[in-house]
Structures are given as structure tokens and as C-alpha cells.
């Protein structure tokens, strides 16, 4: 078996007692989707920011292995190295697409930015690639020159995903990517995501409070509460046979809803 693409041990970042994220162990394997679930304040977004290098841990270790097999110690890495990884090897999809898009830049420019960032200098090719990616995320390529603010919320989120995936990063972090979208739009976005993850074989770490989203996308789940991981396992296993009392409550809550 290959090595994990991302490996965390004892990862901690505490803002106040039980606030933040405490002693988390996690391995992300190539091609798998890991869901982090829990309610607001459970520490799941903090964990995501730590894993993606947007924040530094107080304690623990975090090793990322790139496609070339090169290991990067993200706790010790320079800001320069982390920003480079974020531009090339990582994708980061924000809950609010406005945080992840350049709003004054056209859809094509938004997708093309990462390509140009790694040295693409042929306008025609960049544009063709942007077109292709718009089609991939089911946005009409005729809208390549439109500004994101003329897009619906669901389209903005698709555009953000295309912008992240265009350089074929090995590891994508998503923070509540379907939050703020209405149910039918969510369903369509989840379909697209599932297809892309499968087609591209990328690894994904996704944070969600929505157990439905977790069930649909994730291969494996981490359940968080008060900053700690209280249960882990294959998604079906966790959802069908939850061990921790808290997980049972979480699972029960979605059953009531549906």
C-alpha cells in the first residue's frame, strides 16, 4: 500500500479550553474522501484550516507527501513553501464562494489564475482550458467572460471548484461547500463533486455539519466534539452503527429530518 498523502499526529490548536482542536490523529490516503462532521464549535473548521496550512498548530506533527513522493513538514515549513503548496498541490474550497473567487475578474480569469501562476503564458490555451473546466462543472462555456457576481450561488460554488481543480491538485479541502445553497441546488452540486472526485482520483477532506452530505460524498468519517475526534470509521459503519452516544444523537437527528 502507498503512503498516506497527508498524515497528522497529535495535531492541536487551542483558543480556549475545549475550543479549537485537540490531539487529532488523521491519515488521508490517495483518492479517498474524508468527511469531518460535528456541530458548530466542535473544532472541525479549525482542523481543516490546520490541515490545509491556513493556520499553524500549537502541537503535533503534520506531513504532506506530494505526487513526486517528496515529504513536506507543514508545521515547520516556511510560509513561502506553504503558499506554494496551496497554489499548486492543494485546492481550498470556501463555504462562501465570495471568499474563494476574485469578484472583479471574469469566470475565465478566475479559472485561469492558477494556470498563469504556475507559468502558463498562452492566452488561447488558458482560455481553452478554462472553457473545458466550465463544462466540467456544468456551467455554459459561453459565460466564460461573465463576472462571478452575475452567477447564482450554486454556479459561483461550481466556479470556485473549477478554479481549484484546474491545476489538478492532489488534495482538496472543502469547508461546507453546500452550505447556504437550497436543497435542489445542493443535490446537483453534490452530483458534480462526486463525479469529479471519482474521475480525477483526488483526495478530499470535507467539513460538513450535514450528515446527508457526509453520507453521499465521504468514504470515511471523523466525528468531532469539543475539539476532539470522538469516533472514526467507514462512513456506512459510522452512520449505520454509531458507537459514541453523541454520534448516535447526530445520526438520529438526520433520520428525524428525513
Amino acid at each position, binding site marked *: 500500500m502507498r503512503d498516506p498523502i497527508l498524515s497528522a499526529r497529535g495535531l492541536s490548536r487551542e483558543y480556549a479550553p475545549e475550543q479549537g482542536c485537540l490531539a487529532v490523529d488523521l491519515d488521508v490516503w490517495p483518492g479517498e474522501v474524508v468527511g469531518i462532521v460535528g456541530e458548530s464549535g466542535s473544532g472541525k473548521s479549525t482542523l481543516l484550516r490546520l490541515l490545509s496550512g491556513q493556520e499553524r498548530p500549537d502541537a503535533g506533527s503534520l506531513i504532506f507527501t506530494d505526487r513526486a513522493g517528496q515529504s513536506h513538514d507543514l508545521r515547520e515549513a516556511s510560509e513561502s513553501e506553504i503558499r506554494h503548496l496551496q497554489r499548486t498541490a492543494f485546492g481550498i474550497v470556501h463555504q462562501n464562494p465570495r471568499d474563494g473567487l476574485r*469578484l*472583479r475578474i471574469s469566470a475565465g480569469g478566475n479559472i485561469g489564475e492558477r494556470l498563469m501562476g504556475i507559468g502558463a503564458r498562452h492566452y488561447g490555451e488558458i482560455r481553452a482550458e478554462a472553457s473545458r473546466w466550465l463544462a466540467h462543472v456544468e456551467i455554459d462555456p459561453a459565460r466564460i*467572460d461573465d*463576472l462571478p*457576481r452575475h452567477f447564482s450561488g450554486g454556479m459561483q460554488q461550481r466556479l470556485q471548484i473549477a478554479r481549484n481543480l484546474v491545476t489538478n491538485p492532489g488534495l482538496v479541502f472543502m469547508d461546507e461547500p453546500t452550505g447556504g445553497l437550497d436543497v435542489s441546488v445542493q443535490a446537483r452540486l453534490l452530483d458534480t463533486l462526486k463525479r469529479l472526485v471519482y474521475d480525477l482520483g483526488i483526495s478530499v477532506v470535507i467539513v460538513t455539519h450535514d450528515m446527508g452530505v457526509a453520507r453521499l460524498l465521504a468514504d470515511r468519517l471523523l466525528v468531532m466534539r469539543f475539539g476532539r475526534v470522538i469516533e472514526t470509521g467507514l462512513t456506512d459503519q459510522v452512520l449505520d452503527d454509531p458507537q459514541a452516544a453523541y454520534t448516535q444523537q447526530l445520526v438520529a437527528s438526520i433520520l428525524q429530518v428525513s
Partner: protein
Amino acid sequence: MYVAVKGGEKAIAEAHALLAELRRGDPAVAELSLAQIQNQLSLAVDRVMNEGSLFDAELAALAIKQAQGDLIEAIFLLRAYRTTLPRHGVSTPIETSEMRVLRRISATFKDVPGGQILGPTYDYTHRLLDFSLAVDAMDAAQVDDDDWAEEPHHHDSTHSDAQSGGSEKSLPRVLALLEQEGLVEPPPTEASVSVDLTREPLDFPAARETRLQALARGDEGYLLSLAYSTQRGYGRTHPFAGEIRSGVVMVHCPVEELGYALPVGELLVTECDMINQFQGGGQVEPTFTRGYGLQVGLSERKAMSMALVDRALRADELDEERLSPAQDEEFVLAHCDNVEAWGFVSHLKLPHYVDFQSELALIRALRQAAEAPDV
């Protein structure tokens, strides 16, 4: 027994007496005449007239004298007087292309029909203190100031400069040359009368003419800083000073009985026509956009700032993302009036005993709760 502090009335009277003494300064130094202020501090007079929204140089000079040169206080005085005045009518729009030009420059073309006319400007002075002025002032103190009293209006003196140094014939607008080619958006053709902000409250979203009215009486320093922020990248609009002109225009008022407008007087004004980044692309032919500023007197700094802020505030109309303070109409217009701003800031000097007492009681209670041992 303790007696609470009273006697506010006496304190106020004493404060005013002290203020009068301070305003007058050393009685051995000659007292300022309004004519001196009108003539020798004319740019301060212009500012007070603009932000006080009243074209009366003598009253503005009085306000400056009364306020010891505190221009915001003077603006306040002038506004408080203005609000008592009856309104006899509304003039027709002034025609600045028929201006008798005192100064006229364009930064966009090396030469334009009618030429570049530098006029009176500090632009190319080196900012070296001119100590000869200090000497002259001492000499001038000996001069009988009867001459000044006869000068009715400080603008008449600049007007005579206009005749000697400036252009008597009307000059075409620089932007009209670009309009002929369709390279710049045309100015609005309708002379729409907006609300009168001195009589009606400001309502958002505001029409452009309403915004311009608010900016025209807005604080010079505030608008200057906002204009500057657009140049530094916060709402950038790529400005070029298409044309700045200062000069005298005729004011006409319609007379219903006659069916036409009669000239009622002259006004020295400064106008700024800013050319900004172009719009268009795709099917739409690119054209430059524009921002506009107009002030009475030689208030070039304010007119330019106004034009830049006017352009930035057109973000919605021109389909630009509003991301910067200068593009935010509510932020800009709600805070541009210095009389309002200083009023509210200065009100913090008023007693707030009751509110503060309530807060004091609360914070004590909270601290007590925090110190109490956990149950």
C-alpha cells in the same frame, strides 16, 4: 452638606467673555476687517461659502472672523444663518462653457483650442517661505485701510485679473472634443432638479444629482482623502484631469411674468471634468467615463476631489463591483457633512452622567459576579 454643582448660566457667560477676549487677541494689534478677510483670505472665504452653501463673501468673512479662523465653525455659522433666509426662486442652470475664463488647464492634451491658461495657481510655486511677505505685512500695518472698505467684493478683484490675464471669449470644453468622436460618454442632457438637501433628508439610493449636491457641500478634507484612496487602489478609476476651469459665469433667474430668464449676477466658479477608465468591450464600443465637480470660488482641490468621488460613486450605474469605501454611497454621503460630523463628535462633551451611571452599575455587578466563588 454637599451641594451639587450648579450655576451653568454664569459659567457660560464667563466662557463667552473669555472667548471674545481670545478672539480679539492683543488689543495693541489692529483688528481684522471683513474686507481684509474677503480680500486676503479669499480661499478660506471660498471654502466657507461652498461648505456653508451660501454665496455671500461678506457673511463668510464675518463667520471666519467670528470663528477665529476655525473654518468648520465658520461653515456652521453660515449654515445656521442661511437656514433662516426666504427662498425667492431657483435659477436656471449656469452655463460653464460660456465662462469668462481665469484659469483653464487640461492634463490630457498638450494644447487645446483656446490654449492652456495657467491663471493664479500655487501649482508651480516652490514651497519656500517667502520672508518678504512677513516684512511687507509689517509695513502694511501702517497703511490706512479705508481703501479696502470701498472694495465691495473680493471676487471683483480676481475678476479684473481675469480680464487682463484670462480669456474673454468662451472656450470650448475639452471633453466636448472627445464627445464628437464618441470616445467619452456624453454628459446628462436633462437638467433634472434633484431634491434640495437643505430642505429634504438624504434618501438612499440617491440620484447622481443628489449625490453631487451632497458632495458640493461636503467636507474638503474628507473628500480629498476619499479621492486619494481611489488613486491608491481602493476603487481605482484611472482618472485624467480632462479639464479644470475657473472663471466667471452669469446667473439667470426665470421671471414668470416675462417668460424668460434675466441675469441676476455673476458667480466665480471652478469646474472639474475628470476623464476616467473606459467601459465596454465585446459588442459595446469602449468609451471613457467621467466624473464631475463644481464649486464656487477658486476651490480647485475640492472640485477635483468631488469629481473623483462622483466617479467612484457611479459604481452601480457602470456595473462595477463596490468594494472600496469611496464607492459606498451610504458611507460616503452619510459622513461627508462636516457640520453633522463635528456636531456628533462634539456632543460627546455633553453630560452623559445617566448613561454612564447605568454602565457603571452594570460593570460593578458583572465584576462582583466574576469574583464570587463558583457555586
